[in-house]
């Protein structure tokens, strides 16, 4: 039931209000979609009423302080190890949903082994992969997901695929594993995409609660500061470059080890 209020004698439905996040201000840079990911996740937790039945893992990277925002029990992992922590948690707490929030440096570089093996074992966890093609917190260095030609602080002439290979499409890799039951690529650059992202999170939480296998949601995100753009310029770059290289949509909706 929608909440209703009265203002100046007129009745209004509350269309959207802040979920039950903690009161702390998010430290993310203006326009960064990290905050969107966490608030949508919290909305799903609130709506499903599973605060007591979900445990999260924050990474090393921009989402390191996710435990200051999310309102549920959280653990903080070493760089790249979130999926190993999540495996440990899920194996001893099988009735709980378990999620990780990880950036592309954390997940696709230093933590690739932990990520792939968790997916291959079909751990019933939710991997929320924030891919903005750059190391954000470390200061804008090249990541495995950095686009060809993209200028970063460690690829000042643009990423040269001859030196550094092509951007890693992790979602395409993990969809091949029998262990994954849901692999999708989403964005949060407009309201339509943000609503789809929330649906994807709902589905993934459901999968984790019901032990159906690994759910992998890649949020193709932005990084205004790392990209050295204003927030508004970053929205344009996001759509024109990121979404072109990392097309949105479900890569897999059924699976898991039976």
């Amino acid at each position, binding site marked *: 039931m929608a909440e209703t209020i009265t203002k100046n004698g007129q009745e209004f439905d509350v269309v959207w209000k802040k979920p039950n996040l903690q009161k702390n201000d998010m430290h993310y840079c203006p*326009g960064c979609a990290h905050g969107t990911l966490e608030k949508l996740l919290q909305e799903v937790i609130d709506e499903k009423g599973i605060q007591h039945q979900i445990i999260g893992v924050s990474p090393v990277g921009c989402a390191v302080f996710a435990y200051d925002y999310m309102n549920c029990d959280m653990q903080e992992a070493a760089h790249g190890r979130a999926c190993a922590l999540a495996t440990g948690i899920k194996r001893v707490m099988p009735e709980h949903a378990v999620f990780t929030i990880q950036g592309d440096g954390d997940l696709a570089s230093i933590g690739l082994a932990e990520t792939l093996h968790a997916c291959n074992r079909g751990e019933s966890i939710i991997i929320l992969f924030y891919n903005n093609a750059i190391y954000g917190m470390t200061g804008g260095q090249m990541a495995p997901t950095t686009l060809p030609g993209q200028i970063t602080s460690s690829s000042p002439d643009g990423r040269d695929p001859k030196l550094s290979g092509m951007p890693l499409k992790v979602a395409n890799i993990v969809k091949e594993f029998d262990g994954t039951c849901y692999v999708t690529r989403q964005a949060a650059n407009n*309201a339509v995409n943000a609503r789809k992202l*929330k649906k994807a999170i709902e589905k993934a939480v459901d999968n984790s609660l019901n032990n159906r296998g690994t759910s992998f949601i890649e949020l193709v995100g932005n990084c205004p500061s790392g990209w050295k753009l204003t927030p*508004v310029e970053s929205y344009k770059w996001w759509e024109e470059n990121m979404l072109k290289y990392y097309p949105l949509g479900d890569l897999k909706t059924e699976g898991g080890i039976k």
Partner: protein
Amino acid sequence: MEIKGYIEVDIQKCKGCQLCATVCPKAVIGYSDKTNDKGYYYAIMVNEDCIGCGNCAIVCPDSVITAYRAAKK
């Protein structure tokens, strides 16, 4: 006069990223002349054309917008 909708902005938490403005179908959102305590030009309503769609609120990374739509009678 009855309106179709409106938004409330938690101005001290707004970081002025303007994503809300880019997704508003009615060009309702603009920016303040003065900054908030953090130094950002925060989002404000610049007209009364809001239809209460909530687009701005759902995309806001900092969850500073609450959106209201006129209740159906």
